[in-house]
């Protein structure tokens, strides 16, 4: 197998690497779920995956299409009620990492999955918060993964569905019993981390072949770059193989259904 890969694969593999073995991860559907399961199937076999449907420590053979696919329950250690999941496991402080996607993100890592435009007269109505608002505040830290574009990386989100660091970067300050918040954002172009002081997102690593201008072009604010800007390691052959197998299995399974 050649080591060529798509930018989507680069994003997923990089997001997967963020998860360490043994971490307990509350997984959002879509890109986070893909990355988390790739981590489990490669370097982090003992990563613990939790989905908001109540499935604890699940090991799906294929990627779930919904947050509550039967696959998640069948391969879980056990399945608890949704109130228990949010009360005991998330709010109870058992989650190391919340892994989220989003429709919009701003420079302070605030997430919008509610709507574009004004709340009372939305231009586009999005699905809403789901589990994210409390995942972002109760998990020890938060990883975010999404495709990079001016449509998604905006100067200020239209609505803060889910707290990054607030409109001024300070909203977490002094709040008791709150997690660290977002610690990294992984896109198809780069990896970003919040500045330790201001909490503004800073590019810390560019994916191979991506230029600063590419990121600037795709970001809705004047994006900053770390002084020590790194190059993201490329996916290795095994990571790509496992990812492609996973996606192929998933496609076959979902196509084959009823």
């Amino acid at each position, binding site marked *: 197998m050649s080591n060529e890969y798509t930018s989507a694969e680069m994003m997923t593999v990089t997001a997967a690497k963020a998860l360490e073995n043994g971490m307990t991860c509350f997984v959002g*559907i*879509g890109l986070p779920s893909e990355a988390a399961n790739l981590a489990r199937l490669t370097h982090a076999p003992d990563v613990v995956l939790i989905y*908001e*449907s*109540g*499935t604890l420590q699940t090991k799906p053979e294929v990627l*779930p*299409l*919904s*947050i*509550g*696919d*039967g696959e*998640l*329950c*069948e391969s879980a250690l056990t*399945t*608890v*009620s*949704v*109130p228990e*999941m*949010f*009360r005991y496991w*998330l*709010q109870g402080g058992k989650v190391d990492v919340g892994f989220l996607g989003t429709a919009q993100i701003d420079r302070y890592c*605030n997430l919008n999955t*509610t709507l574009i435009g004004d709340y*009372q007269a*939305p*231009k*586009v*109505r*999005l*699905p*809403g*918060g*789901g*589990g*994210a*608002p*409390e995942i972002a*505040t*109760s998990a020890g830290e938060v990883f975010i993964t999404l495709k990079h574009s001016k449509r998604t990386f905006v100067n200020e989100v239209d*609505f*803060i*569905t*889910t*707290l990054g660091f*607030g409109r001024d970067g300070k*909203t*977490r300050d002094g*709040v*008791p*019993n*709150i997690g660290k918040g977002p610690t990294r954002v992984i896109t198809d172009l780069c990896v970003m981390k919040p500045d330790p002081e201001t909490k503004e997102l800073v590019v810390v690593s560019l994916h191979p072949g991506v230029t600063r201008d590419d990121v600037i072009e795709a970001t809705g604010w004047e994006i900053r770059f770390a002084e020590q800007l790194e190059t993201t390691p490329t996916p290795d052959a095994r990571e790509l193989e496992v990812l492609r197998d996973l996606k192929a299995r998933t496609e076959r399974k*979902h*196509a084959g*259904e*009823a």
Partner: protein
Amino acid sequence: MAEFLSLHDAVARYVEDGATVAMEGFTHLIPFAAGHEIIRQGKRDLTLIRMTPDLVYDQLIGAGCAKKLIFSWGGNPGVGSLHRLRDAVEKGWPHKVEIFEHSHAAMACAFEAGAAGLPLAVLRGYVGSELPSVNDQIKYIECPFTGERLAAVPSVRPDVSLVHAQKADRKGNVLVEGIIGVQKEAILAAGKSIVTVEEVVDDLEAGPNACVIPGWAIDAIAVAEKGAYPSYAHGYYPRDNRFYKDWDAIARDRDTFQTWLDDNVYNAGGQA
């Protein structure tokens, strides 16, 4: 005490125009058959409660049954938007639907509090979110021991709840298994409850701590085979992911939706 009724009779008896209705099932065991029966009976002005409105509420909203929606995630899981919900919210078709929007954590706690007979749920929630600025049902209390400010939401206490489950025994005790969501809470929190089941059996064959809801805590049980389709019933049939994808095109257009509704609900007799 659970009475075995036809789905038609159960809905006719317990779902009134203007009622507050919760139909639960978290991705799994979504009570589609019951939803279709509500559409067929032309119920109006319902306040619909559900964590994840999903296709079932897209259909109810598109069919004009809903006046309000209380929810926390309104999408087509794994596919995208709920176009009928969006059309109602964005364009007011077939009429305006008022929305009360929460997070999953708050909704889950609100169901829990409803089952627990409390007027409010308390959670560490909504910190830094702007949802409280658009939903006046989100308030705060102060912990008298630590001074911590915690979110409070009204408990969910529907007039009637409808859920689907795998099976009932002949006394009306119901087993829910797999992803159990907030089904038990929905039933216990409601004034009246209707459970549709895949089948009625002699023995539930449940483990000692299984999620079994006693018949005396349920008002009506109706057999609805494949009553959760196109969602799934653990142990019975899988989710029809293709239908979920197809729904995107069906629901995107008012006419296609109307035709689908005619073919699959209005003219589909007792069960769709």
